[in-house]
């Protein structure tokens, strides 16, 4: 095997969306100066930070807190709003030679549709991701705890675009399959699973929460087993639905674990904070892993896990 160039085929598809490799950067973990360090053009796709209709200041400091093998964040969807994003961010984003997925969050079901409709007019958007699962904003935006609302939001958003729409789900539910099923019922082209898990850290000496907003979303390696379990549950129940695995993915092995569990692609989040080039280093490590396992096409691994989710026995 020495000296032979690694030639594994990393391409995958998410419904009609074809990616040169399965590695994306997750919403809210990429932007600003990160593209000065990370070679963004080599990614499978970029998922932009969630775009809201109006500018948002975000939550009070402290907004992040390190926890064992993870971190809590409560940023609060700060951002320039739709107009500000188009003015400030779009000029850079449209130069990216990778696929571009726009993440949106509305205050109401209708606002999701309006955001998608307006952004759909931009020339090179490849897909949308509906952030119906941010645990850090009030006014009941955590829509993905409710299957009926999830279906509604997806339906309205799908009506506003012909491009693929993915629903990003929260792990803060008892039965994520029910929510995934509702999203698909509403017309979702795929599922992004999962957002952060609600958590808390306490500074007992100050008798105070460590995070300014009291609770935050847990991400990083500590989240991985939970995310992997949920991806596996969704993929077992809905084998034809493309799933993007998210949650603590930091290595090429993590990527392959999610794909074997059923994910067609993955997103890297917290790992990019640990190492801004994590995503491309993971892409570089995949061919060697596949060759060593005698796998020539990464897509052949998707959903090959031998265990299927069991229906609860009655």
């Amino acid at each position, binding site marked *: 095997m020495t000296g032979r160039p690694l030639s594994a085929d990393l391409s995958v598809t998410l419904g009609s969306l074809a990616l040169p490799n399965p590695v994306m950067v997750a919403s*809210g*973990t*990429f*932007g*600003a*100066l*990160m593209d*000065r*360090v990370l070679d963004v053009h080599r990614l499978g796709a970029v998922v932009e*930070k969630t775009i809201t209709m109006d500018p948002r*200041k*975000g939550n009070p*400091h*402290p*907004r*992040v*807190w*390190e926890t*064992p*093998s*993870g*971190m809590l*964040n409560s*940023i609060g969807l*700060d951002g320039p709003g739709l107009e500000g994003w188009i003015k400030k961010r779009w000029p850079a984003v449209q130069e990216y030679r990778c696929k571009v997925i726009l993440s949106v969050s509305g205050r109401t079901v209708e606002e999701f549709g309006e955001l998608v409709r307006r952004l759909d007019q931009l020339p090179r958007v490849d897909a949308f991701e509906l952030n119906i699962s941010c645990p850090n904003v009030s006014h009941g935006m955590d829509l993905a705890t409710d299957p009926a609302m999830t279906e509604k939001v997806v339906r309205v958003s799908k009506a506003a675009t012909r491009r693929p729409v993915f629903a990003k789900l929260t792990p803060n539910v008892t039965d994520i399959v029910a929510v995934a099923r509702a999203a698909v019922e509403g017309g979702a082209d795929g599922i992004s699973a999962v957002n952060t898990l609600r958590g808390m850290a306490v500074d007992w000496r100050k008798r105070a929460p460590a995070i300014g907003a009291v609770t935050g979303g847990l991400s*990083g*390696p500590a989240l991985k087993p939970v995310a992997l379990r949920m991806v596996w549950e969704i993929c077992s129940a809905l084998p034809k639905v493309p799933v993007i695995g998210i949650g603590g993915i*930091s290595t090429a092995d993590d990527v392959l674990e999610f794909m074997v569990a059923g994910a067609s692609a993955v997103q890297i989040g*917290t790992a*990019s*904070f*640990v*190492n*801004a*080039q994590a995503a491309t280093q993971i892409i570089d490590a995949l061919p060697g892993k596949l060759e060593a396992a005698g796998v020539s096409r990464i897509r052949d691994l998707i959903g090959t896990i031998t265990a299927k989710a069991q229906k609860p026995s009655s």
Partner: protein
Amino acid sequence: MAGIYNGDATVVRQDRYSTNCWKMTLAVPRHDAVEAGQFCHILTEFSTDPLLRRPFSYWDVRDGDDGTLHVDLLYTVVGRGTEAMARKAPGARMGYLGPLGLGFTPKPAKTWVFVAGGVGIVPFYFFAKQARARGRNPRMLLLFGGRTEAMLYGIDDFAGVGVEAQAVTEDGSRGRKGLVTQLIEEQLPALDRKDLQVYTCGPERMMEAVVRIARREGLPCEVSMEKHMGCALGACGACVTRVLSDDGADWRYSRICIEGPTYDACRLVLE
């Protein structure tokens, strides 16, 4: 900032500087010139716990004799990341991302007053050294406060870069007993306030008090902020401070890793 280096750094040496304070020299490939007041983001362990990087101001930067850049970090042990750093021996490797952020603005004023508290002293040594090397000749006066003499980190190094240092300690173990803000009030009458520039770095409460004095006296002041950081590249939105909005009518959160860590005090909205 075209040449941000993201990769390994090798520990060249590590010395205990005073109680709970260490000076570490790292060798990194030559990267963009560091402006005093910028910082680097250090991955202390290649592990998942501790997971995140820690930001450090540069104490000194110089060319190493081995073709690398030698970076000095002066730091206190405050938690698990810095505990891990303090255990590193020469040859150990850590992750390095830098240089990052915006450095201090060298102002044309005839007198620069550095107001520092505790480990907030760090950026001023390189600032003075760099300014002197670039032929700037303001009078530089350091007003330095610490809890004890042992916490006046590096104070005796400043004479070598042409800085007059005055200290206060909370226990009176060196200099007057008191707070650095009292030292400013004492010194101000003797200074030409029309040709003065204040720079400050230290605990948040101290910097707020310095900013209030500067505003009261109409003195220009630059502040170097620190907050818990995530990515240090402006992507995550963790390290924010309140600044006036661009039209001045409201405030907004500014990401200190890319818009700071240095700010003109006029822009800050004290919480």
